[in-house]
Structures are given as C-alpha cells and as structure tokens.
C-alpha cells in the first residue's frame, strides 16, 4: 500500500510520522511537565535547559508544543476514523437499500450541510467548554457528511454494475460484494477525504482554542497557545511562532498525504 504512494505522499507520511514520534518521545523524556510554572524564568530565549525557551508562566515550550502536537494528532485521528466509518457505512447502506432510508438521510444531510460546520462545532463547544469528548463529537458530526455523500454516489453506480450483479447471482453475500466491488472503488476518494479531514480537524480544534472555547488551560493546545502567547509577540516573537509553525507543518503534512488530483487510482 505504502509502495503505491506518490513521492509527495511518502514525504507527507514521513513528515507526520516523524512529527508524532518526536513529539511523543519528548513528552516521555522531558524533565518538565506542561503545567510546571517557574515565574522567575519567564519568556526565556532558547537555551540548553529550555530548548525552545519558556512561555509567560515560565513553562517549558518544548514540552508544551510536543504535548499539543500529540493531542492534535490523537483528536484528528479519532475524528477521521469515526467520521469515515460512519459516513462510508451509512453511504453504502443508503445507496444499497434506497427507499425511505434514503429520503430520511437526505433530510438529515441537507440540514447538516445548511449549517456552517464551524458554527455547529462552536455551539457544541460553548455548551460544554473544554470537554475533549464533546469537541470530538462535534467535529465528527460535521465531517461524516462528506464521506457519506462521496461513498453514496460511488456506490450508486457500482450497485448497478454487471460485475456486482453477477457476484450476487453467483451466490456471494453482501460482505463479499462490498469488499470486492464497492470498497476498491471507494478507497482512493476516502483516503483523500481522510487526509483533508485530518488537516481540517486540527484547524477546527485550533480555531476553537483561539476563541477560548476549545481545550481549557493549563492543557497545551496549539490554537490556545497561539492566543495566550499573542500579547508577548514584541517581547518574545520566537515563542509565538512555535505553535504557528507546528499547525502549518501538520496541515502541510496532511495535504501532502492527500496527493493531487492527477494521481488517480488508475
């Protein structure tokens, strides 16, 4: 599977895996905790003791950035996994069974599409601020619709293909038909959607942190860190830049992974 990827996708995989590996080992090995304050050592420049300097409470930036990256990864992974599973299964089932279920799904999907995604997430986040679970549910709720629409449209054409009809006639069950005929046609689109979805989940989380309704302090979160460090941009520009670079690198990695529109599955 990895072997079939284009060079830019491999770079994307490498970048993301490397970042995750480095981030989690830093969290494990760092002598500091993300909440360890040291008010005598505020806004320090990078040094041998604090490799990336310290923030306005004297907390170690390296540990905080690593922890924030880890959090972003975990959340985006679960959001993508849940929304893709939900969207694809509902999409395939709706296309296959049709009838009333299709009508009902149309109504739900149209309602969700009519609401701007970020507003929906903001609404959820504002009800229970700082809850990781609610954040995850809200992001998943806005993201599964894309998977649903794509997999439903693709499945619709495959349901009527001679190949699937023949498999059915020969006695193969629904799971075989899905695995042999529907899933291979879906993978490419779903993987592309998942890559962009991963990037979007990270951005959404950062946006919420930025408007103070996402993760609450003292937890480290990239968006929250950007807004916390913003007042010190003149005194210590290097610490403000760090979460921004981290977000950009993550999003860049996911976008590389998505590939470009020319490298189709064929």
């Amino acid at each position, binding site marked *: 599977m990895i072997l079939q990827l284009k060079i830019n996708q491999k770079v994307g995989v490498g970048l993301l895996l490397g970042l995750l590996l480095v981030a989690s080992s830093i969290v494990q090995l760092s002598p500091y905790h993300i909440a360890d304050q040291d008010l005598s050592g505020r806004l320090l420049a990078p040094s041998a003791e604090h490799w990336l300097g310290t923030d306005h409470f004297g907390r170690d930036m390296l540990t905080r950035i690593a922890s924030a990256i880890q959090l972003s990864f975990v959340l985006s992974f679960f959001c993508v996994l849940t929304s893709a599973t939900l969207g694809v299964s509902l999409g395939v089932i709706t296309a296959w069974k049709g009838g009333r279920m299709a009508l009902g799904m149309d109504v739900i999907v149209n309602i969700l599409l009519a609401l701007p995604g970020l507003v929906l997430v903001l609404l959820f986040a504002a009800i229970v601020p700082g809850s990781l679970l609610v954040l995850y549910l809200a992001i998943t709720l806005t993201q599964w619709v894309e998977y649903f629409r794509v997999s439903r449209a693709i499945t619709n054409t495959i349901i009527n293909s001679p*190949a699937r*009809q023949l498999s059915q006639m020969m006695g*193969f069950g629904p799971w*075989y038909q899905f695995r*042999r005929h529907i899933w*291979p046609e879906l993978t490419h689109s779903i993987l592309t959607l998942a890559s962009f979805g991963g990037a979007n989940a990270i951005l959404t989380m950062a946006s919420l942190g930025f408007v103070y309704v996402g993760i609450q302090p003292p937890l480290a979160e990239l968006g929250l860190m950007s807004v916390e460090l913003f007042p010190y941009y003149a005194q210590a520009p290097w610490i403000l830049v760090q979460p921004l670079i981290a977000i950009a690198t993550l999003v860049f990695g996911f976008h590389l992974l998505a590939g470009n529109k020319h490298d189709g599955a064929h």
Partner: protein
Amino acid sequence: MTALIKVHDLTIHYQGKCLVNKVSFSVQQGRPLTILGQTGSGKTLVAKAIMGLLPSVLEASGTVEVFGKPVMAQSRSPLWGKSITMLPQEPWHSLDPLMVNYQQVSEVYESVKGEDGEAAFNHAIDDLTHLGLKGSALKRPTELSGGMAQRLAIASATAGGANLLIADEPTKGLDSSRRDDIIQLLQRSAQGGSLLTITHDIDVAQQLGGDILVIKDGEMIEAGSAESVLTNPQAEYTKALIYAAPQYWQIEKLRKTERKAILSVTDLTIGRGKDALASGLNLTCHTGEIIGVVGDSGCGKSTFGDTLLGLLPPLKGEIKPLLANTKSHQWLKLFQDPPSSLSAHVTLQTLLNDLVKLHKLDTQKIAPLMEKLNLPESILQRSAKDVSGGELQRFSILRALLLEPVFLFADEPTSRLDPFIAKEITELLIALAREQGCALLIVSHDPALIDKCCDTVIRLDQQKHKSVA
C-alpha cells in the same frame, strides 16, 4: 476524380515494435474507402495518422496528403471540422454528458462556423428534426439509445461543413436496422466529399461499396473494389474474415430425444416498471437447448432474459421452474461487456478462488475446462483490465460453467467482439452448454447468428413466439 486523401508508405512504430507497416492508399472524391480488419490490426492508428492525432510516443513515417497538399500533424488542425472530420469510436465518449443534445450541435455552428446564437439554434434544430431526434433535443446524451447517440455524434461532427468523413467503427454494438440507418446517414453526410470507414463488419463494407483495404497486424493484405474483394477474395485472411460471419457458421442442432424440460413460461408479459414491452410469451426450456431471442434494440430482449432469471418481476403470466433441487446460483447471466462484468482490482485467479471457496467446487475440473476454453494458465495472474475482451468473455464462461448452471442467459455475448473471436466464443459456449446439459438463452440483434445457433427462436418485434425447432 480527385484523390482527397493520399497516404503513402505510412509506417508507425512504438518502442521499436512495428504497429503499421508501409500502408498506402488513396480516397477518391465520391468513392468511399473501407478499411477492414480485426481488433488490434492498426486500423484506428491509420485514421489517427490522417487526422494528425497520433500520440507523440509513436513514431510515424511516410507521407499523408489531404486535398492534394502534403500536411504535417500541426498544420492539419485548420482543416478540422471545416473540411475533414472524424467520428471516434463509441459516441458516448465524444458527446458531452452534461450538455443537452441540441447544444452539442448548435455549439459547432457557433464556434466553427461563427454563426450567431439564434441561427445556430435554428440550424441545430433543423439537423435534429432531419435525423428524427427532435423529440430528444432537450435530453442529454445518456438518455439516448446507441443508434440515436451515434446519429447525434454524426450531426455534431458534420455541422462544421466537413464532407470528408473518417468514421471509426461507426456501427459497433448497433443492431442491423440501426446499422443500416447509420450507413445511409454517413453516405448522405459525405456527399460531395468522401468517406473513410474503419470496421470489422463485412456487411458495413458491402453496403458502403467503393473500395476496400484489408489490414492484418498493420500490414496491407488486400485492396480493391468492394465487389471484387468480397465476392472473390484472394488472400486467405480475407476469406477467413468473410467466412467468420454468422451466416457461414456450422453448428449442430440438438437431438430432441435428449432433452428434459426445466422451465415453463405461460402467457408472460414483460416490462421494466409499468410499461409492458412484450406480451403473450410462451416457452418451455429444455436441458441443452439453445434458445435465441432476436429483435431490434429496445424491444425487451434483455428484459425477457432478466425476467426469466428472476431479476425483474413479470408483469403478468407465470414462470415455473420444472426441475427440483436447482440452486439460485445455477441460474446465471453472461454480460455483453466482459470488462465491466468482472472486478478489475484483483487477479482472475483470486476471482476464481473466491468462487471455489464459496461453493466448495472441485478444483480438478478447472484445468480441463480451461483447456477446452482455450485459456492459458498464465492469464490467471493478470487482472481484468490487462486481458483482452475475448479472453475475458471466455473466463466469464469458465466461471459460469464451473457452477454447473441449468440455465444461462447470454446477453449479446459477442456483439462487442470482432468476428473471429465472436465465432470462436459462440461455438465454445454452445458446445459446452450442450455438454453440461444447460439451457442457453442467447440474446442478439443479429438474426443470422440466432438462426444459425439456436434450436428455438423467439422474435420479440412481432410480439409472438415462433418456434423453429
């Protein structure tokens, strides 16, 4: 008479392999030329070379003169549409699926001839009325039948005023009356100019008349007037090509004593949705019997087969299986387009293994059956997209026969294959169905094929069941 196209020593190479070797011919004004040959013989490449559409990875040498002037690939584009035009294979691919039908024509009037919107619209509607497509002017190409789409493609291709036409397999997959319509339309459109047709269909060559050029593996085999080539072919290959047509087939008829009834159909009305397509159908199928269904497109041939298989509900009447203990996977269908009826994501071996595992089949039976079907072992390591249509259709037959079917519905199994392969596959299918005692329902738009092969014939256009057993 002036030569409109003159091709001299055209040779096309790809990575050192010769695809077309020293082909020379000329197309005279008012005298159509037909290039005849099998799939993969290089016919289409010749047409593309004349249009200047050869992919750049191919190396071409030789000269091509159009309207008496030698032209290079680049300098041919000003001629496109205005004086020379090409009808590519498969009209679906050359029409815009998102554009309504009249626009496909009016756009040509606007862009190529520079007419204003209203004049272009009027001209387009005139053309469509002329072709009997007026009722479909506001529909989209996917809503048209094959013959209608081809007529629309011709209207669109010739709207620019070109009367030198190059048609690549214009009648592929069309039934005989639609085919005749298209040929007449092509002849009309080429008036004052000329027509270069590429086909594997002898009947098309015969109807067009003019000259014939036979090509095999990129080599010129025979050339001459249509009459002399078709009635008195010199080359062995030409003879074989002519005798591959269904009217020359020799297929043994079933001996009546051997048969056992498996299915009875009484007073059946078939249709899709609420509209009845045919009614009053009566039939009894027997083991080893070959039943032919013939009729024009849209008359319900495929619907009939699907209804017998239980894929569609009958609108009226009764279908009664007479054999006890048959399983549903023994009632099978063979599709028209082999590549679309097999998953291309795994090797053929995997598809075969899936089937063996599901029904716990005896793997010993595979090898002898493959030998009978002329399928090399190595083909199983490839996936459906790397295998030719003929081989895939034989592989489909292999899969079907492994399940020991009692009833097999073959929906135009050979209409997209060239005559040699069509003959081979039909003969194999019939022989093996007889051997296994499987009733075979063949649907075809070619009356000659049905008459030659079948024990019982159902003509749907007359809406009456006529037995000729």
